[in-house]
């Protein structure tokens, strides 16, 4: 029995090792090709860069210069951080308010938020774009309330679930002691919501950082985000693409996410599981 378990474990380990290699292979392929001259990518994509094909960081310089990817990176970072902050602060306030103040109106609002979670983006894509452009929300500042609106469904739902489990007595005590509702919320309630706030922040950050269609429709090519910059580079090239520069762009787009993931892995995986179970 022991012997068999050992063989099975050895076999499983080798299998997992092989699978990890397969999982990493697509990324490896992009990385090696980002160091090859553009003429050698199409012909011999699997070859490791050698003396003839290796071009150092030339692709990175070309990719950065031609695509405005550095600007896109900081723009995406700004939009993501600002929108996530807005979502965490405003939706937690909303969730607390509609959970604690019982009224018909608040109940309807809560169910509307829930309902929005099942509506695919294409349903409101065209009309939302025209409403937002009419209101002047088609810029990097204006897109923040747009993300707040689209992120509110899941976020209000998750915060409400947690608020319901909190004892009311602590908040009541704070208010009897003379705290305003605003002070009560930020000094007493919000610190207790922290685990949910982290989950909400991670789920929304992953979505907004990678989002393509919404920034494509509202910001377009003038204020491109990372995903939009990559898509437009490919779309605008009509076959005459600089593959080297494009590979370098992909690598530059992946590195920050992987670095962030390796640092915050524990929170990300926990956040994703919580989000899946409650969503």
């Amino acid at each position, binding site marked *: 029995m022991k012997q068999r378990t050992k063989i099975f474990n050895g076999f499983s380990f080798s299998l*997992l090792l092989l*699978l990890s290699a397969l999982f990493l292979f697509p990324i490896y*392929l992009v990385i090696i090709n980002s160091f090859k001259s553009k003429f050698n990518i199409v012909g011999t994509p699997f070859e490791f860069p050698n003396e003839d094909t290796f071009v150092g960081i030339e692709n990175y310089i070309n990719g950065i210069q031609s695509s405005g990817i550095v600007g896109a990176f900081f723009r995406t970072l700004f939009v993501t951080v600002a929108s996530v902050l807005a979502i965490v602060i405003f939706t937690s306030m909303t969730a607390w308010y509609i959970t604690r103040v019982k009224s018909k109106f608040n109940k309807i609002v809560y169910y509307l938020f829930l309902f929005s979670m099942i509506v*695919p983006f294409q349903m409101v894509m065209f009309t939302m774009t025209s409403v937002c452009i009419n209101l002047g929300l088609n810029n990097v500042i204006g897109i923040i309330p747009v993300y707040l609106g689209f992120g509110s469904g899941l976020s209000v739902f998750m915060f409400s679930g947690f608020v319901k489990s909190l004892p009311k007595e602590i908040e009541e005590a704070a208010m009897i002691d003379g705290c305003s509702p605003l002070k009560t919320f930020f000094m007493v309630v919000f610190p207790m919501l922290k685990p949910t706030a982290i989950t909400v922040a991670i789920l929304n950050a992953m979505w907004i950082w*990678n989002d393509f269609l919404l920034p494509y429709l509202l910001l377009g090519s003038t204020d491109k985000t990372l995903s939009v910059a990559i*898509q437009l580079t*490919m779309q605008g090239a009509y076959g005459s693409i600089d593959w080297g520069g*494009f590979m370098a762009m992909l690598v530059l*787009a992946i590195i920050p996410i*992987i670095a962030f993931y390796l640092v915050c892995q524990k929170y990300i995986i926990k956040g994703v599981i919580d989000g899946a179970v409650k969503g």
Partner: protein
Amino acid sequence: MEKNMKKYFPIFLLPTLVSFVIVFFIPFVMGIYLSFTRFTTVENATWVGIENYIKAFTQDENFLNALWFTIKFTIVSVITINICAFLLALLLTRALKGTAFFRTVFFMPNLIGGIVLGYIWNLLINSILGIFGYDITYSADYGFWGLVFLLNWQLIGYMMVIYIASLQNIPSELNEAARIDGATPFSILRHITIPMVMPAVTICLFLTITNSFKLFDQNLALTGGAPARETSMLALDIFNTFYGRIGWQGVGQAKAVVFFIIVALISFIQLKITSRKEVEN
């Protein structure tokens, strides 16, 4: 306390509610209305009844093709992703060396955005097909299986961590008791493990169904619908109808309503199943 709080209504409720009404509620209601009209911008709509819906199903073979492609794709992806993810979770909950490393690797693709994912796989698949002188736009089958592999790569790790969390919740006494009673590993799997992880199975099934059904970014980046429109899924077909065919915006909106109804039905079934499970427990 409630009375006191009500005065603070504008601060607590309005920022979220106003954004929500502007970007979701109003566009949603407008969208339903516009699906019954002919329009090129939201201001010049004329009522045409259900003409757009009829057009979507009869005059536009792309829509039915996209619907069929999406359903086929969803079925294949849901089955492959969940089987692979569950098997990996089983392996990674055994006391093996390096499980933390493997989990990190398998989960990682999930964080990369759909557009970037699509182009990574575009490179990989075209490199492989290039050996034989083809590329991914050569046949719709290549696009189909390319998308299946891509989504497997992206979602296996995600579903795997949900299955792992669920497997770790099974009390170890249960397995030990069964082993002492002489149960084989297979019957433990069949009679203890699988029934105990059923809630996770429901969650993962619906997560993979909705993720496959609503796929857009990956579809756009990997095949862009090529060859012709054969590998366009529903979301991409709707996008192309809106922005690629002048005068067809109404049909695009009608397609979007149909798309919404299908997605809503899927979610509704999920809600029914989960709430029934909760009652049973």
